[in-house]
């Protein structure tokens, strides 16, 4: 199949790659850009392990074609820590609160929570649960993921007790 040249700007770095029209954004990130932090748990849009931010919007990378992202900016889990590996406050909250076990779903949850915490709207318990229920985790029973994101929201003054 013929390949189309596209440019993806991932975590601020431009990647000029050539992809088949059917290549998903997730596969392009993993295989063409070498960014394997974005995981694939179902490839049919349910689990959210592949969650990334596309021009600031939270999307499932398995449901987007790479060519749809041509010329656009993408943020993935690899862009969260500083280049020397220091965890950002959200990652740190996941660490301190044991918000991960096997870690396979973690990149997706981190990107989903990153988006949540960057919205104007303050976060309360209902919104937290509602938004985080779009991804699946098989290990944690969600308790400590919720705790970690709650703590991160509190730390930046985004948390509110009642709706």
């Amino acid at each position, binding site marked *: 199949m013929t390949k189309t040249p596209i440019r993806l700007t991932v975590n601020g770095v431009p990647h000029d790659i050539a992809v088949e029209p059917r290549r998903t954004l997730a596969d392009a990130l993993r295989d063409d850009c070498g960014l394997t932090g974005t*995981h694939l748990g179902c490839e049919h849009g349910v689990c959210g*392990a592949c969650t990334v931010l596309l021009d600031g919007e939270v999307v499932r990378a398995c449901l987007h074609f790479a060519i749809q992202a041509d010329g656009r900016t993408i943020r993935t889990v690899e862009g969260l820590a500083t280049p020397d590996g220091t965890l950002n406050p959200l990652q740190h909250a996941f660490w301190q609160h044991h918000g991960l076990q096997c870690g396979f779903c973690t990149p997706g949850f981190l990107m989903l929570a990153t988006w949540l915490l960057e919205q104007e709207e303050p976060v309360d318990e209902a919104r937290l649960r509602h938004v985080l229920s779009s991804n699946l985790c098989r290990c944690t029973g969600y308790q400590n993921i919720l705790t970690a994101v709650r703590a991160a929201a509190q730390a930046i003054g985004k948390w509110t007790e009642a709706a």
Partner: protein
Amino acid sequence: MNWTGRRLPRTEDPALLRGEGAFTADLAAGARAVRFLRSPYAAGRILSITAPDLPPGALLITGADLEGVGAIRPELFRFNYRAIAQPVLPRERVHFVGQPVAAVVAATPEEAEDIAETILLDIEPEDPVVTIDDALRPGTPTLHAEAPGNLVVDGTIRHPDCEAAFARADRIVELTLRSGRQNATPMEARAGLAAYDRATGRIRLTASCQMPHMLRTGIATLLGMAEADLQIVAPDVGGGFGQKMALFPEYPLLVWLARRHRGSFCWVEDRNENLIASAHSREQRHHLRAAFAADGTLLGLEADILANTGAFSCYPTTCGVEPLMALAEYPGPYRLPTYAARARALATNTCPAAPYRGVSRPVVTFGLERLMDRAAAALGIDPVALRRRNLVTEFPHVTPTGLTLDQASYVEALDRAVEAADIPAFRTRQQAARREGRYLGLGLAVFNERTGYGTPAFAARGMGIVPGYEVVDIAMTPAGEVEVRIGASPHGQGLRTALAQLAADRLGLDPSRIRVIHGDTDRTPYGWGSFASRGAVIAGGATQLAADKLAARLRRAAARLLQAEPESIALRDGAAWAGEASIPLTEIARRVHQRSEQLSDLDGFNLAETAQYDPGGTFSNACHVAEVEVDAETGHVRVLRFLVVEDAGRLLNPLIADGQVHGGVAQGIANALLEEVLYAPDGNPLTGSLADYLPPSAAEIPPIEIIHMETESPETLTGAKGLGEGGTIGAPAAIANAISDALAPFGVDITELPATPARIRALIRNAR
């Protein structure tokens, strides 16, 4: 400084949080892609497999290519087990939808998929056997000639005085229950990458697995290759829950490809394959009869256990694992004077069964705890009082199946749970809600969990391959760090952190100086893996023993250098102390290795030790309480509250322990309400995506409250008991009892899980 027992964040986490973990699929660059062709029929005869236009460079592998490759055929020498053989790729017949029948190799996964679609698979369908009833029906087809009547296991335990107990009973309570089929559904599906090393002729299989050493032995045996030429690496593994214990046919095929074609071959399972063709669990039907005295004393129990274990038998545990665990552990935490039971495994044309967190105990606990509630109603006794009357209170206690229950807190945990649940306040709420036409319910489940059992327990099952012990090699480097090499293979349980905490205390070192190495057969001693809630107990015990031996060496060396007696030396803060005098452990390590003329007469030229541990096992225990609201119109169940009183002995790291309970309970709630693998009558799976098979999201899992009790086990070195499976074991029963309590006004109760909205609506409809 005591590191053990602290809520230490895990050393595993930072890389995973940066997206820098290395899962098998992350390592696939440069490998050729493998796509399996899977049987579209539940039963059938293979007529031909042909590739009309195979592009150059691509490969099609069928069973005919695998001359000399053995079949997967695990053994069990008891319970009328019939060994059945699973070919890596079949040549004659297919036995379930999803069974791999051929493999296509191409440069990329997309190409391999395209080519796979062009392959002509000519299979003549045959009549399938799908359900337990199908398998038992007289005249039904036989899957395997070796197993007449599709009976793969038929085990019996019968105490001679059981009938007398029933004859003398004031009340006999009966229950028939069904448990739906489940898939453990790790978020990372299976994956394997086999790479041939031309320099050495060795093959490295990187696989998302739970038992790397067992996999190595198994594959080498099947392929008739030198085990020494095969290395298995379990890199980061995205959950297993038992599903990744088994030796699946896909892995030997990858190694075969790498050997034959001297290259790298990668298979990454997709979710559909995982849902239909990895391993299923828990499809069981139990019939129970219990004899009670009028005062509520349990006099005897009869159980008839049927398990649909699918088309083949999983290696190494065999498909006996489910029915036989139920057979051995039905008495649970209760004093049971006499017992009679039969447990059968039935072969059907469905995906093979394998262990899933808790194995049979979620079903057993569902049975026992439903039985207790039914008996309480029949006898007019409070369900808590009935349980209290029958729970074991004196330890050690030998069960009617010969298991020894060590020190535990069955009654105490129940009492704590009842107190924390505040049942009187709940009853008031329940009454008020009923007046508004809302149905609240509260359910209890008390259970024990057999954990950390070594070789004797597995040997008693008559297994051909007997797992159990763990070996730990420990060594201090010349620079003073400690490497702990374990045969066990954790995948999310945080063992790297917990074992470092244990070793840190024994060696007086900071845990950050300790590296726990696992999941690589080249770098770790032969061992079994992480399953059956054994990590903290067995790998923990072996780590403690090994660390103590290393500490003794360090003390002897320090005594020489400090001119003191070894017994007077204390290890703390990274140094060896004799009173006020001290020497850093780094200095001792350097001198042992590099100034050996000073010390080698003591213990030789290194600081390496090895230790083994093989305990008999210990029972942790817990009481779960669920509060639910049932919508009588829609049949929908909302879990309002979930409380766990857990006693897992000494906790090495409570942060990790809580996480294990949370995750287990979530799986248990899903077992009770959501997850069910369904087959059409022709054996076609109906739940092939995560839109049909429903793991829970954060919306379905309530806050989980945990209260820990710590009855230290006299049976384990660390005092710890396992707790990895408990959450999964108790939650289904607690939820089923809570729904039954809510539906009491309709006179119905729950005997089938998952209690889906459709099932609940049907119950209510039929009651009205």
